[in-house]
Protein backbone atom coordinates (compact mmCIF):
# COMPACT_ATOMS: atom_id res chain seq x y z
CA UNK A 1 0.00 0.00 0.00
CA UNK A 2 1.12 3.53 -0.75
CA UNK A 3 1.38 5.71 2.36
CA UNK A 4 2.29 9.33 2.94
CA UNK A 5 3.17 10.98 6.22
CA UNK A 6 5.47 13.58 7.71
CA UNK A 7 8.71 12.17 9.13
CA UNK A 8 10.83 14.57 11.14
CA UNK A 9 9.52 17.58 9.26
CA UNK A 10 9.74 16.07 5.77
CA UNK A 11 6.83 14.82 3.69
CA UNK A 12 7.62 11.19 2.85
CA UNK A 13 5.94 8.37 1.02
CA UNK A 14 6.54 4.64 0.83
CA UNK A 15 5.05 1.51 -0.62
CA UNK A 16 4.65 -0.88 2.32
CA UNK A 17 2.98 -4.18 3.06
CA UNK A 18 0.07 -3.64 5.47
CA UNK A 19 1.86 -5.81 8.04
CA UNK A 20 4.89 -3.48 8.18
CA UNK A 21 5.16 -1.86 11.59
CA UNK A 22 5.89 1.84 11.78
CA UNK A 23 9.21 0.95 13.43
CA UNK A 24 10.30 -1.26 10.52
CA UNK A 25 9.11 1.34 8.02
CA UNK A 26 11.13 4.12 9.67
CA UNK A 27 14.24 1.96 9.89
CA UNK A 28 14.09 0.04 6.61
CA UNK A 29 12.32 2.38 4.21
CA UNK A 30 13.85 5.62 5.46
CA UNK A 31 17.12 4.42 7.00
CA UNK A 32 16.50 6.26 10.25
CA UNK A 33 17.85 3.67 12.63
CA UNK A 34 17.79 5.77 15.79
CA UNK A 35 14.46 4.14 16.61
CA UNK A 36 15.57 0.90 18.24
CA UNK A 37 13.71 -2.38 18.19
CA UNK A 38 14.16 -4.82 21.05
CA UNK A 39 11.13 -6.78 22.21
CA UNK A 40 8.88 -6.03 19.22
CA UNK A 41 5.76 -6.66 21.25
CA UNK A 42 5.20 -3.54 23.30
CA UNK A 43 7.07 -4.30 26.51
CA UNK A 44 10.42 -2.49 26.41
CA UNK A 45 9.68 1.02 25.09
CA UNK A 46 12.91 1.25 23.03
CA UNK A 47 10.96 2.01 19.83
CA UNK A 48 8.99 4.95 21.25
CA UNK A 49 8.34 7.74 18.72
CA UNK A 50 6.00 10.73 18.68
CA UNK A 51 2.88 10.59 16.51
CA UNK A 52 1.12 13.95 16.39
CA UNK A 53 3.03 14.89 19.54
CA UNK A 54 2.08 11.81 21.57
CA UNK A 55 4.55 9.13 22.65
CA UNK A 56 3.61 5.74 21.20
CA UNK A 57 5.32 2.42 20.65
CA UNK A 58 6.19 2.17 16.96
CA UNK A 59 6.29 -1.64 17.11
CA UNK A 60 2.59 -1.65 18.08
CA UNK A 61 1.54 0.56 15.23
CA UNK A 62 1.28 -0.29 11.54
CA UNK A 63 2.88 2.07 9.06
CA UNK A 64 -0.46 2.22 7.21
CA UNK A 65 -2.06 3.62 10.36
CA UNK A 66 -0.03 6.86 10.31
CA UNK A 67 -1.28 8.03 6.91
CA UNK A 68 -1.13 11.88 6.92
CA UNK A 69 0.18 11.95 10.50
CA UNK A 70 3.22 13.74 11.88
CA UNK A 71 5.89 11.34 13.10
CA UNK A 72 8.97 12.47 15.03
CA UNK A 73 11.80 10.10 15.95
CA UNK A 74 14.94 10.63 18.00
CA UNK A 75 16.58 12.00 14.82
CA UNK A 76 13.96 14.73 14.67
CA UNK A 77 14.54 16.07 18.17
CA UNK A 78 17.93 17.68 17.69
CA UNK A 79 20.29 19.07 15.09
CA UNK A 80 24.05 19.01 15.55
CA UNK A 81 23.82 20.21 19.14
CA UNK A 82 22.48 18.19 22.03
CA UNK A 83 19.11 19.36 23.33
CA UNK A 84 18.97 20.30 27.03
CA UNK A 85 17.30 16.93 27.71
CA UNK A 86 20.06 15.05 25.90
CA UNK A 87 22.72 17.15 27.64
CA UNK A 88 21.16 16.29 31.00
CA UNK A 89 21.32 12.56 30.14
CA UNK A 90 25.02 12.99 29.36
CA UNK A 91 25.70 15.00 32.50
CA UNK A 92 23.97 12.51 34.80
CA UNK A 93 25.43 9.38 33.12
CA UNK A 94 21.87 8.36 32.30
CA UNK A 95 23.04 5.91 29.65
CA UNK A 96 25.68 3.25 29.32
CA UNK A 97 25.22 1.06 26.24
CA UNK A 98 22.66 3.53 24.89
CA UNK A 99 20.30 1.02 23.29
CA UNK A 100 17.27 2.11 25.30
CA UNK A 101 18.15 5.81 25.22
CA UNK A 102 16.15 6.91 22.14
CA UNK A 103 13.02 5.49 23.76
CA UNK A 104 13.71 7.24 27.04
CA UNK A 105 14.47 10.55 25.32
CA UNK A 106 11.37 10.51 23.12
CA UNK A 107 9.16 9.49 26.05
CA UNK A 108 10.62 12.11 28.40
CA UNK A 109 10.40 14.75 25.66
CA UNK A 110 6.69 14.02 25.17
CA UNK A 111 6.10 14.13 28.90
CA UNK A 112 7.92 17.41 29.50
CA UNK A 113 6.38 19.03 26.42
CA UNK A 114 2.93 18.37 27.89
CA UNK A 115 3.80 18.55 31.60
CA UNK A 116 6.95 20.63 32.20
CA UNK A 117 6.21 20.59 35.94
CA UNK A 118 5.97 16.80 36.25
CA UNK A 119 7.21 15.70 39.69
CA UNK A 120 9.46 12.73 40.37
CA UNK A 121 6.53 10.37 40.95
CA UNK A 122 4.98 11.32 37.63
CA UNK A 123 8.31 10.96 35.83
CA UNK A 124 8.83 7.51 37.35
CA UNK A 125 5.27 6.54 36.44
CA UNK A 126 5.73 7.59 32.82
CA UNK A 127 9.19 6.03 32.43
CA UNK A 128 7.95 2.73 33.90
CA UNK A 129 7.09 1.72 30.34
CA UNK A 130 10.75 1.84 29.28
CA UNK A 131 13.33 -0.78 30.22
CA UNK A 132 17.03 -0.03 30.77
CA UNK A 133 19.31 -2.95 31.57
CA UNK A 134 22.56 -1.17 32.40
CA UNK A 135 22.35 2.29 33.94
CA UNK A 136 19.67 1.68 36.48
CA UNK A 137 16.93 4.25 36.56
CA UNK A 138 18.13 6.73 39.18
CA UNK A 139 20.37 8.80 36.85
CA UNK A 140 17.69 8.75 34.12
CA UNK A 141 15.13 10.21 36.51
CA UNK A 142 17.67 12.79 37.70
CA UNK A 143 18.36 13.83 34.10
CA UNK A 144 14.68 14.26 33.31
CA UNK A 145 14.13 16.22 36.53
CA UNK A 146 16.94 18.59 35.58
CA UNK A 147 15.71 19.02 31.99
CA UNK A 148 12.33 20.32 33.19
CA UNK A 149 13.58 23.89 33.46
CA UNK A 150 14.41 24.08 29.74
CA UNK A 151 10.85 23.04 28.84
CA UNK A 152 9.41 25.63 31.22
CA UNK A 153 11.56 28.37 29.69
CA UNK A 154 10.93 27.57 26.05
CA UNK A 155 7.39 26.25 26.23
CA UNK A 156 6.69 22.99 24.45
CA UNK A 157 9.01 22.24 21.57
Amino acid at each position, binding site marked *: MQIEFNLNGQAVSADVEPRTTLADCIRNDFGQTGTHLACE*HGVCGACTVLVNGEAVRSC*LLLAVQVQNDKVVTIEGLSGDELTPLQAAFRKHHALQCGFCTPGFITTAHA*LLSHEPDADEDRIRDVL*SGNLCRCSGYVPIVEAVLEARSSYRDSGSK
Partner: protein
Amino acid sequence: MKPPIFEYASPLTVAEAVSLLASRNGNAKVISGGQSLMPMLAFRLAAPELLVDLKHLKDLGAIRIGEDGVRLGARVRWCDIESDARLAVSHPLLAEAIKHVAHYQIRNRGTVGGSVAHADPSAEMPGIAMTCDAQMKIVGSAGTRIEAAADFFTGPLQTSLEQDEILTEVHLPAWPAARRWAFLEFARRKGDFAMAGVALYYDLDSGSRITDAHIGAIGVADRPIRLTEAEAVLNGNQMSDKLIAAASAKARQSIDPPSDIHAPGAYRAALVATLLGRGLKKSAA
Protein backbone atom coordinates in the same frame (compact mmCIF):
# COMPACT_ATOMS: atom_id res chain seq x y z
CA MET B 1 8.45 -11.19 15.71
CA LYS B 2 6.98 -9.93 12.46
CA PRO B 3 3.22 -10.05 11.93
CA PRO B 4 1.84 -12.46 9.31
CA ILE B 5 0.60 -11.19 5.97
CA PHE B 6 -2.82 -9.56 5.98
CA GLU B 7 -4.85 -7.00 4.06
CA TYR B 8 -5.85 -3.66 5.57
CA ALA B 9 -8.93 -1.48 5.24
CA SER B 10 -9.97 1.73 6.98
CA PRO B 11 -13.71 2.16 6.33
CA LEU B 12 -15.51 5.49 6.76
CA THR B 13 -18.66 4.18 8.45
CA VAL B 14 -19.60 1.51 11.00
CA ALA B 15 -21.88 -0.09 8.39
CA GLU B 16 -18.99 -0.40 5.96
CA ALA B 17 -16.81 -1.88 8.70
CA VAL B 18 -19.48 -4.45 9.51
CA SER B 19 -19.85 -5.49 5.88
CA LEU B 20 -16.08 -5.89 5.57
CA LEU B 21 -16.11 -8.16 8.64
CA ALA B 22 -19.08 -10.11 7.28
CA SER B 23 -17.34 -10.65 3.92
CA ARG B 24 -14.53 -12.74 5.45
CA ASN B 25 -16.32 -15.46 7.41
CA GLY B 26 -14.50 -14.86 10.65
CA ASN B 27 -11.11 -14.21 9.07
CA ALA B 28 -11.25 -10.46 9.57
CA LYS B 29 -10.38 -8.66 12.78
CA VAL B 30 -11.08 -5.15 14.04
CA ILE B 31 -8.10 -2.97 14.94
CA SER B 32 -8.10 0.43 16.60
CA GLY B 33 -5.31 1.16 19.10
CA GLY B 34 -3.87 -2.28 18.41
CA GLN B 35 -2.20 -2.47 21.81
CA SER B 36 -3.44 -6.02 22.43
CA LEU B 37 -3.84 -7.18 18.84
CA MET B 38 -0.38 -6.13 17.60
CA PRO B 39 1.47 -8.32 20.15
CA MET B 40 -0.83 -11.22 19.20
CA LEU B 41 0.02 -10.66 15.54
CA ALA B 42 3.73 -10.40 16.38
CA PHE B 43 3.56 -13.75 18.20
CA ARG B 44 1.31 -15.06 15.42
CA LEU B 45 -1.34 -16.02 17.93
CA ALA B 46 -3.71 -14.26 15.54
CA ALA B 47 -3.48 -14.44 11.76
CA PRO B 48 -6.48 -12.69 10.20
CA GLU B 49 -6.82 -12.25 6.42
CA LEU B 50 -7.99 -8.68 6.88
CA LEU B 51 -7.62 -5.95 9.48
CA VAL B 52 -10.47 -3.43 9.65
CA ASP B 53 -9.14 -0.22 11.18
CA LEU B 54 -11.71 1.95 12.98
CA LYS B 55 -9.48 5.06 12.77
CA HIS B 56 -11.92 7.11 10.67
CA LEU B 57 -14.92 6.44 12.92
CA LYS B 58 -14.44 9.60 14.99
CA ASP B 59 -17.87 9.34 16.57
CA LEU B 60 -16.73 6.28 18.51
CA GLY B 61 -14.13 8.40 20.30
CA ALA B 62 -16.56 10.36 22.47
CA ILE B 63 -17.16 10.19 26.22
CA ARG B 64 -20.81 11.10 26.81
CA ILE B 65 -21.97 11.85 30.32
CA GLY B 66 -25.66 12.21 31.07
CA GLU B 67 -28.29 11.49 33.70
CA ASP B 68 -28.30 7.82 32.73
CA GLY B 69 -24.58 7.42 33.28
CA VAL B 70 -21.35 7.40 31.31
CA ARG B 71 -21.16 6.21 27.73
CA LEU B 72 -17.68 5.38 26.52
CA GLY B 73 -17.27 5.10 22.76
CA ALA B 74 -15.24 2.09 21.68
CA ARG B 75 -12.36 4.28 20.49
CA VAL B 76 -12.00 6.22 23.75
CA ARG B 77 -8.38 5.88 24.84
CA TRP B 78 -7.03 5.51 28.38
CA CYS B 79 -5.43 8.95 28.11
CA ASP B 80 -8.84 10.42 27.16
CA ILE B 81 -10.35 9.03 30.36
CA GLU B 82 -7.35 10.21 32.38
CA SER B 83 -7.70 13.79 31.10
CA ASP B 84 -11.50 14.05 31.40
CA ALA B 85 -11.98 15.91 34.70
CA ARG B 86 -15.75 15.24 34.70
CA LEU B 87 -15.20 11.56 35.46
CA ALA B 88 -13.81 12.23 38.95
CA VAL B 89 -17.43 13.02 39.86
CA SER B 90 -19.40 11.14 37.20
CA HIS B 91 -17.60 7.84 37.71
CA PRO B 92 -14.74 7.92 40.23
CA LEU B 93 -14.39 4.12 40.24
CA LEU B 94 -13.73 4.15 36.48
CA ALA B 95 -11.28 7.04 36.78
CA GLU B 96 -9.34 5.27 39.53
CA ALA B 97 -9.27 1.87 37.82
CA ILE B 98 -8.04 3.31 34.52
CA LYS B 99 -5.01 4.82 36.28
CA HIS B 100 -3.75 1.25 36.60
CA VAL B 101 -3.97 0.39 32.89
CA ALA B 102 -0.63 -0.24 31.18
CA HIS B 103 2.13 2.29 30.57
CA TYR B 104 2.27 5.87 29.23
CA GLN B 105 2.88 5.06 25.55
CA ILE B 106 0.24 2.34 25.52
CA ARG B 107 -2.25 4.63 27.25
CA ASN B 108 -1.96 7.01 24.30
CA ARG B 109 -3.23 4.31 21.92
CA GLY B 110 -5.12 1.62 23.85
CA THR B 111 -8.92 1.83 23.75
CA VAL B 112 -11.94 0.91 25.85
CA GLY B 113 -13.49 -1.14 23.05
CA GLY B 114 -10.25 -2.95 22.32
CA SER B 115 -9.74 -3.97 25.93
CA VAL B 116 -13.33 -5.08 26.42
CA ALA B 117 -13.47 -7.02 23.14
CA HIS B 118 -10.06 -8.59 23.84
CA ALA B 119 -11.49 -9.71 27.23
CA ASP B 120 -8.28 -10.41 29.08
CA PRO B 121 -9.39 -11.82 32.46
CA SER B 122 -6.93 -9.61 34.33
CA ALA B 123 -7.64 -6.36 32.48
CA GLU B 124 -9.18 -3.42 34.36
CA MET B 125 -11.83 -2.22 31.89
CA PRO B 126 -13.59 -5.59 31.54
CA GLY B 127 -13.49 -5.77 35.35
CA ILE B 128 -15.16 -2.38 35.68
CA ALA B 129 -17.76 -3.30 33.04
CA MET B 130 -18.55 -6.48 34.96
CA THR B 131 -18.63 -4.80 38.39
CA CYS B 132 -20.84 -1.93 37.25
CA ASP B 133 -23.42 -3.94 35.24
CA ALA B 134 -22.32 -2.22 32.02
CA GLN B 135 -24.40 -2.47 28.89
CA MET B 136 -22.50 -3.21 25.70
CA LYS B 137 -23.72 -1.69 22.45
CA ILE B 138 -22.93 -3.99 19.56
CA VAL B 139 -23.47 -3.37 15.84
CA GLY B 140 -23.55 -6.20 13.31
CA SER B 141 -25.14 -7.27 10.01
CA ALA B 142 -28.38 -8.03 11.86
CA GLY B 143 -28.55 -4.56 13.41
CA THR B 144 -27.78 -3.14 16.82
CA ARG B 145 -28.10 -5.08 20.07
CA ILE B 146 -27.42 -4.30 23.72
CA GLU B 147 -25.87 -6.94 25.95
CA ALA B 148 -25.19 -7.00 29.68
CA ALA B 149 -21.55 -7.41 30.69
CA ALA B 150 -22.46 -10.60 32.58
CA ASP B 151 -23.47 -12.23 29.29
CA PHE B 152 -20.78 -10.57 27.16
CA PHE B 153 -17.71 -12.20 28.73
CA THR B 154 -17.84 -15.91 27.96
CA GLY B 155 -14.32 -17.20 28.67
CA PRO B 156 -10.60 -16.44 28.42
CA LEU B 157 -10.26 -13.84 25.63
CA GLN B 158 -13.76 -14.85 24.57
CA THR B 159 -16.91 -12.79 24.21
CA SER B 160 -20.35 -13.12 22.70
CA LEU B 161 -19.32 -10.94 19.73
CA GLU B 162 -20.18 -12.59 16.43
CA GLN B 163 -17.76 -12.57 13.49
CA ASP B 164 -19.53 -9.65 11.84
CA GLU B 165 -20.07 -7.57 14.98
CA ILE B 166 -18.31 -4.52 16.40
CA LEU B 167 -18.52 -3.30 19.99
CA THR B 168 -19.29 0.41 19.63
CA GLU B 169 -20.05 1.64 23.15
CA VAL B 170 -19.81 0.67 26.81
CA HIS B 171 -22.53 2.21 28.97
CA LEU B 172 -21.91 2.46 32.71
CA PRO B 173 -25.13 3.22 34.65
CA ALA B 174 -25.46 6.49 36.59
CA TRP B 175 -23.28 6.96 39.67
CA PRO B 176 -24.95 8.48 42.79
CA ALA B 177 -22.79 11.17 44.38
CA ALA B 178 -22.83 9.56 47.85
CA ARG B 179 -21.81 6.09 46.62
CA ARG B 180 -18.88 4.41 48.41
CA TRP B 181 -16.24 2.68 46.31
CA ALA B 182 -12.67 1.41 45.98
CA PHE B 183 -10.36 -0.07 43.38
CA LEU B 184 -7.20 -1.93 44.32
CA GLU B 185 -4.92 -4.21 42.37
CA PHE B 186 -1.52 -5.78 42.84
CA ALA B 187 1.13 -6.11 40.13
CA ARG B 188 4.86 -6.65 40.55
CA ARG B 189 5.55 -3.61 38.38
CA LYS B 190 3.08 -0.72 38.10
CA GLY B 191 1.29 -0.83 34.77
CA ASP B 192 1.79 -4.54 34.26
CA PHE B 193 -1.13 -6.94 34.31
CA ALA B 194 -2.47 -7.40 37.81
CA MET B 195 -2.00 -10.70 39.64
CA ALA B 196 -5.38 -9.85 41.09
CA GLY B 197 -7.57 -6.80 41.46
CA VAL B 198 -10.80 -5.84 43.22
CA ALA B 199 -13.37 -3.18 42.28
CA LEU B 200 -16.23 -2.49 44.65
CA TYR B 201 -19.05 -0.09 45.36
CA TYR B 202 -22.14 0.10 47.52
CA ASP B 203 -24.72 2.61 48.73
CA LEU B 204 -25.83 3.31 52.31
CA ASP B 205 -29.46 3.46 53.38
CA SER B 206 -30.87 5.87 55.99
CA GLY B 207 -29.64 3.57 58.76
CA SER B 208 -26.09 3.47 57.34
CA ARG B 209 -26.65 -0.11 56.21
CA ILE B 210 -24.96 -1.33 53.03
CA THR B 211 -27.23 -1.80 50.04
CA ASP B 212 -26.62 -2.93 46.48
CA ALA B 213 -23.04 -4.08 47.11
CA HIS B 214 -21.11 -4.83 43.93
CA ILE B 215 -17.71 -6.53 44.13
CA GLY B 216 -15.79 -7.48 41.01
CA ALA B 217 -12.48 -9.33 40.75
CA ILE B 218 -9.93 -9.55 37.94
CA GLY B 219 -7.07 -11.97 37.39
CA VAL B 220 -8.66 -14.80 39.36
CA ALA B 221 -10.83 -16.67 36.84
CA ASP B 222 -11.16 -17.19 33.08
CA ARG B 223 -13.06 -13.90 32.86
CA PRO B 224 -13.84 -10.92 35.11
CA ILE B 225 -16.23 -12.07 37.84
CA ARG B 226 -18.57 -10.78 40.55
CA LEU B 227 -18.05 -12.02 44.09
CA THR B 228 -21.75 -12.44 44.83
CA GLU B 229 -21.31 -14.41 48.05
CA ALA B 230 -19.15 -11.68 49.56
CA GLU B 231 -21.68 -9.08 48.35
CA ALA B 232 -24.40 -10.97 50.25
CA VAL B 233 -22.32 -10.81 53.44
CA LEU B 234 -22.25 -7.00 53.15
CA ASN B 235 -25.83 -6.22 52.12
CA GLY B 236 -28.12 -5.09 54.95
CA ASN B 237 -25.30 -4.62 57.45
CA GLN B 238 -23.39 -1.68 58.84
CA MET B 239 -19.68 -1.55 58.03
CA SER B 240 -17.41 -2.87 60.78
CA ASP B 241 -14.05 -4.60 61.06
CA LYS B 242 -15.89 -7.83 61.77
CA LEU B 243 -18.02 -7.47 58.64
CA ILE B 244 -14.94 -6.70 56.56
CA ALA B 245 -13.23 -9.83 57.88
CA ALA B 246 -16.32 -11.94 57.14
CA ALA B 247 -16.66 -10.59 53.60
CA SER B 248 -12.95 -11.12 52.89
CA ALA B 249 -13.07 -14.69 54.18
CA LYS B 250 -16.14 -15.40 52.05
CA ALA B 251 -14.43 -13.94 48.98
CA ARG B 252 -11.42 -16.17 49.54
CA GLN B 253 -13.55 -19.30 49.85
CA SER B 254 -15.74 -18.50 46.88
CA ILE B 255 -13.02 -18.38 44.23
CA ASP B 256 -10.63 -20.95 42.82
CA PRO B 257 -8.03 -19.02 40.80
CA PRO B 258 -5.75 -20.86 38.37
CA SER B 259 -2.04 -21.22 39.07
CA ASP B 260 0.48 -19.93 36.55
CA ILE B 261 4.12 -18.82 36.37
CA HIS B 262 3.26 -15.55 38.14
CA ALA B 263 1.52 -16.95 41.22
CA PRO B 264 -0.15 -20.08 42.60
CA GLY B 265 -3.95 -20.05 42.80
CA ALA B 266 -3.98 -20.05 46.60
CA TYR B 267 -1.83 -16.91 46.61
CA ARG B 268 -4.23 -15.12 44.29
CA ALA B 269 -7.19 -16.12 46.48
CA ALA B 270 -5.42 -14.73 49.53
CA LEU B 271 -4.54 -11.60 47.56
CA VAL B 272 -8.20 -11.01 46.67
CA ALA B 273 -9.18 -11.33 50.35
CA THR B 274 -6.49 -8.82 51.34
CA LEU B 275 -7.37 -6.37 48.57
CA LEU B 276 -11.07 -6.62 49.39
CA GLY B 277 -10.41 -5.99 53.08
CA ARG B 278 -8.28 -2.94 52.30
CA GLY B 279 -10.78 -1.71 49.73
CA LEU B 280 -13.71 -1.94 52.13
CA LYS B 281 -11.75 -0.06 54.80
CA LYS B 282 -10.79 2.61 52.28
CA SER B 283 -14.39 2.94 51.04
CA ALA B 284 -15.66 3.53 54.56
CA ALA B 285 -13.02 6.09 55.50
